[in-house]
């Protein structure tokens, strides 16, 4: 609600408009209250439809996690202890990794459920079946969940058109717990890709495949760019190998999905290698890389620094009178 500060400044500056501003402020305040009431009732209806949990306790948990997520986990285990007992019918956890027989353990699922309820359930619901604000996550598979959580895009800080990348709220084992819990709710989806083949992959094939499949949105230097109507292709300079592979396989947000029919596992490794070793470590042999956005930055430098310095030189040589 930081915009209210501007309203106060507005009032301060325009004493004559004080009454009008107060009325505006009040109406906005009421609107915000109404919005909160609306979201609270939404959360309540979701939880009621899914489990027999008390709606008030959920909103309390989700509110407390925003301030002290890590510390509250031990206490909330007790408070939601009963539903985990229901889930104990899953004797063996879901598969998480591609080409591996490692399964999620029951303790991972239990821990994940706690984290999920604290951080995700206010939108996605306790059983991850979605709400009017958020999609159903059941059956999406480990790769999707891991991508959204490790890139920090989930939990969402601000419901805009496309979530932005930010530091992840969880460490890798907490993330896997959440992945295990959501994957335990239903079968299907894509497993976390195996990155063992990246070292032996071909970077030049990766460059060619990247130009063909990825550069159309992410640009050839991987700097990212704006797409239509507020959507954008993000920069690839911070993506980890696993995240690149997960994004290709699962197609997050506006990105298309490339399955193994489009891009084979070997080619996937080539692209991952090119992104993490070519694009993220560009060969800027010519000097200052100018952000990798090409002629726009070059034009500004050429005109401001190049022509600018030479105009200053002419001021130095010539007379100013």
């Amino acid at each position, binding site marked *: 609600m930081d915009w209210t500060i501007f309203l106060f400044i507005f009032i301060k500056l325009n004493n004559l408009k004080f009454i009008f501003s107060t009325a505006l402020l009040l109406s906005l305040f009421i609107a915000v209250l109404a919005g909160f009431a609306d979201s609270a009732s939404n959360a309540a209806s979701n939880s009621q439809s899914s489990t027999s949990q008390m709606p008030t306790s959920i909103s309390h948990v989700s509110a407390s996690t925003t301030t002290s997520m890590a510390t509250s986990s031990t206490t909330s285990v007790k408070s939601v202890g009963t539903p985990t007992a229901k889930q104990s019918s899953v004797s063996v956890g879901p598969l998480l990794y591609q080409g591996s027989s490692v399964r999620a353990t029951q303790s991972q699922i239990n821990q994940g459920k706690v984290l999920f309820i604290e951080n995700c359930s206010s939108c996605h619901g306790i059983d991850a079946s979605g709400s009017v604000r958020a999609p159903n996550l059941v059956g999406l598979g480990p790769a999707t969940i891991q991508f959204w959580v490790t890139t920090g895009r989930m939990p969402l800080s601000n419901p805009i058109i496309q979530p932005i990348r930010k530091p992840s709220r969880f460490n890798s084992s907490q993330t896997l717990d959440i992945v295990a819990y959501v994957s335990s709710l239903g079968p299907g989806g894509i497993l976390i890709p195996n990155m063992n083949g990246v070292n032996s992959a071909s970077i030049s094939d990766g460059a060619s495949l990247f130009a063909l499949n990825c*550069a159309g949105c992410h640009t050839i230097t991987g700097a990212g*760019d704006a797409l239509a109507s507020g959507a954008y292709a993000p920069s690839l300079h911070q993506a980890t190998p696993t995240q690149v592979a997960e994004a290709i396989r699962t197609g997050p947000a506006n990105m298309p999905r490339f399955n193994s029919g489009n891009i084979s596992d070997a080619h996937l490794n080539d692209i991952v290698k090119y992104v993490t070793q070519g694009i993220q470590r560009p060969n800027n042999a010519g000097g*200052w890389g100018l952000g990798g956005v*090409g*002629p726009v930055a*070059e034009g500004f430098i050429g005109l401001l620094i190049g022509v600018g310095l*030479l105009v200053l030189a002419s001021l130095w040589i010539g007379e100013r009178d």
Partner: protein
Amino acid sequence: MEKLTTKDLLKNLKPNKDNKLSPQERAANAGRWIDERLGAAKGGRTFFNKIFPDHWSFMLGEIALYSFVVLLVTGVFLSLYFDPSSTMLTYHGSYKPLDGTQVSAAYNSTLAISFNVRFGLLVRQMHHWGADIFLGAIAVHMCRIFFTGAFRKPREINWIVGVTLLILGIVNGFLGYSLPDDLISGTGLRIMFSVLESIPVVGTHLAFWLFGGNYPGNGVIIPRMYMLHILVIPAIIAGLVGAHLFMLVRQKHTQFPGKGRTEHNVVGTPMWPGFMFKTQGFLFLTVAVLALLGGLAQINPIWQYGQYFPYKVSYAVQPDWYMGWLDGALRIMPSWEISAFGYMIPNQFFPSILFPGIAFNIFIIWPFLEARMTKDRDIHNLLDRPRDRPKRTAVGTGALAFFFMLFFASSTDVLANYLSVSLNLVLWFFRIATYVVPIVVALVTYKICIELQLAGKNAGRRKRFNVVIRTEEGEYVAQKSPAREGDMDVLSEHGEIPLELNDRVSHVIRQSADSIGVESKKSKTTT
């Protein structure tokens, strides 16, 4: 040192049988040798006696001239190593991420220049920065000529030559940008093919003829562009630069009005001794700035882009800045389908053929257009201050704002990404702002010019208070307060003897009792 005449030299030459000539005599001998054969003394005298005004703004054209020199030198170096061929081969060079991929000979040789030729990357980057700065300097120089009215009679022809140089510079810059056959320039070439194709009636024939068939043609476009880029257009540019400078010497420089400056003289520094050293210094500074940019700031890293294939495309593709306004016009053009004579005229014809055609034609005919509008057909060697021609200045800044908006419109996607706003919003902003901003800029400029003019006339003469005093009889008298401190010198210069050095109204009122008698009598006679 005394001046040497030919007679003195001849006298001196005879007794010097041991052939020991002073350096001056040797130089004079050499000069005479040339003069006897070519008659160079007369032209040389004109050249060495040529007077250059000292004002800094007269040096802007030289930035363009010297970057052109750098372009020629670096271009010759690059032509030693560049292979203008579309023949595909397998790359096995120094840049490992492309090892084993199919590349054209042109792209391969540009990579070799960048990674394997000693000084290759520096020279290539200097050449590219040089092109950006060459056209930037032309634009800045053109602004100086325009806003000071230096294009007026008798210099209309030189203005047209200058505009032609600008057009040729843009064309040659685009051709050079397209030569390395990388992913980004290939996309630009694809756009150019479509632009040529959009010309009604002849478009398809023209595009197919230039490219040797439908896009991407049969591999002839790179050799053809190379021939134009390194031979035909530079030769025309060099010839026109010569004509530009010849006319400059022949017509003599313009100058700003000032003490001792008239329509019939030029005040400044002669070529020798004086300006020669300044301009040489400027050449070195231009080379220095280009070397600095070429060595430190990376431009067009084609190895990051890869070989161009028509089926591959990168987003965020922009041309070099001097083509940016055309790209911007293309971007903001609404998707209208306009038909004439039963045929649809391709949409891109309007922003990328018709618009620059009209723009350049207005540039070319501007001196005549202005002469017709102002009915001023006199010879002008003294320049205008921009504020004294508010209408021209307003038109100029409006046009500049228009081209700047188009230039920024060429980076809609990059702006949207950096400002985290919708691309559509940015596009619509430019669709409107491109027309609104120039009008606002022109109006504001006009107003500022008028204000500056007034400031010039009333310099040092700030407004004075009108003090209304009520006399003892009940009569009201208006009295002007004394001039304010600092304005005194000006007032006395203008023959106005200032009143007392009091600038406080209260003080004036306190003293008013003495002056009322006089003032009220005066006011009675006037009213």
